[in-house]
């Protein structure tokens, strides 16, 4: 049976509590992984591994490819980032590759260093829901 949105949110909350050592109450949809929950770079890999484990079933493995959830290597391409800002091409690629992240606010001042602040708990839930439904 397909997981409901509430089930997904509860499972994502468990993953973040375990991976980041945060309180359950702090894991709200609008909380950002970096700013509000204190995620550091290795935590992103930890989150990916835990999501895979949490949402895999014997019938359907839940595998997350590199860059599928967090666009780590996207921004090292010079055609996508100029003078620290993500180019129009970069924004288009973000919308295509990481649709679970709402870049509408980010594109007003697309400083690449600020991109991680747009990853929220809701982004993770959207990602999981879309991927499970696919």
């Amino acid at each position: 049976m397909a997981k409901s949105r509430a089930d997904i949110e509860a499972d994502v909350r468990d993953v973040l509590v375990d991976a980041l050592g945060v309180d359950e109450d702090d894991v709200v949809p609008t909380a950002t992984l970096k700013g509000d929950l204190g995620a550091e770079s290795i935590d992103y890999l930890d989150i990916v591994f835990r999501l895979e484990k949490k949402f895999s079933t014997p019938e359907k493995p839940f595998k997350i490819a590199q860059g599928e959830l967090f666009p780590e290597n996207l921004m090292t391409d010079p055609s996508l980032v100029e003078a620290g800002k993500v180019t129009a091409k970069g924004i288009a690629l973000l919308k295509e590759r990481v649709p679970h992240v709402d870049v509408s606010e980010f594109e007003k001042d697309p400083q690449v260093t600020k991109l991680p602040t747009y990853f929220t708990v809701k982004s993770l839930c959207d990602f999981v829901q879309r991927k499970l439904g696919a």
Partner: protein
Amino acid sequence: MRWMWIDRVTVFEPRKRLVAVKSVSLAEEHLHQHFAAERTADGTTLPPRPVMPSSLILEGMAQTAGILVGSVHDFREKVVLAKVVSATVERDILPGETLRYDATLERMDEMGASTVGIVDRFSFVDHAWAPVGRIELMFSHLDQNRAGVAFPEENFVFGENFRTILEGAGLRRAGV
């Protein structure tokens, strides 16, 4: 050989599991400081109480699990400990006891790996192994770091320090 906190690899299942042992000895100087005799504020003297520091038990597991992770790519990747996900050691480990680090590879990709390890102790009083702890770790492949920082070509992680351990485990040919 410095900063080695395992004595020997005893089990190696490629890409899956690696087990190492470490005998704790009073000849190790650090045990005499941890804990040395101490005079308390009320004038009484507490006797020395040598105990293997938990931080070094953690390091022993990191070396065991790190060799397992490094072996997957034949020690070409620079594997560094990136995160202690959880660690519990439930009792003191005393001189004369042997530690066993049993590390299992949970998940691995280009960026790094996660491992789960059980710490056992062999007591020559009970003549049996018993679990004393559990340590979950994450390792990063340094050359794949998210910041794109470049590191030297030479693999300084699996350098000379590991030579004896890797040769003893058959993971590296002697003299190479």
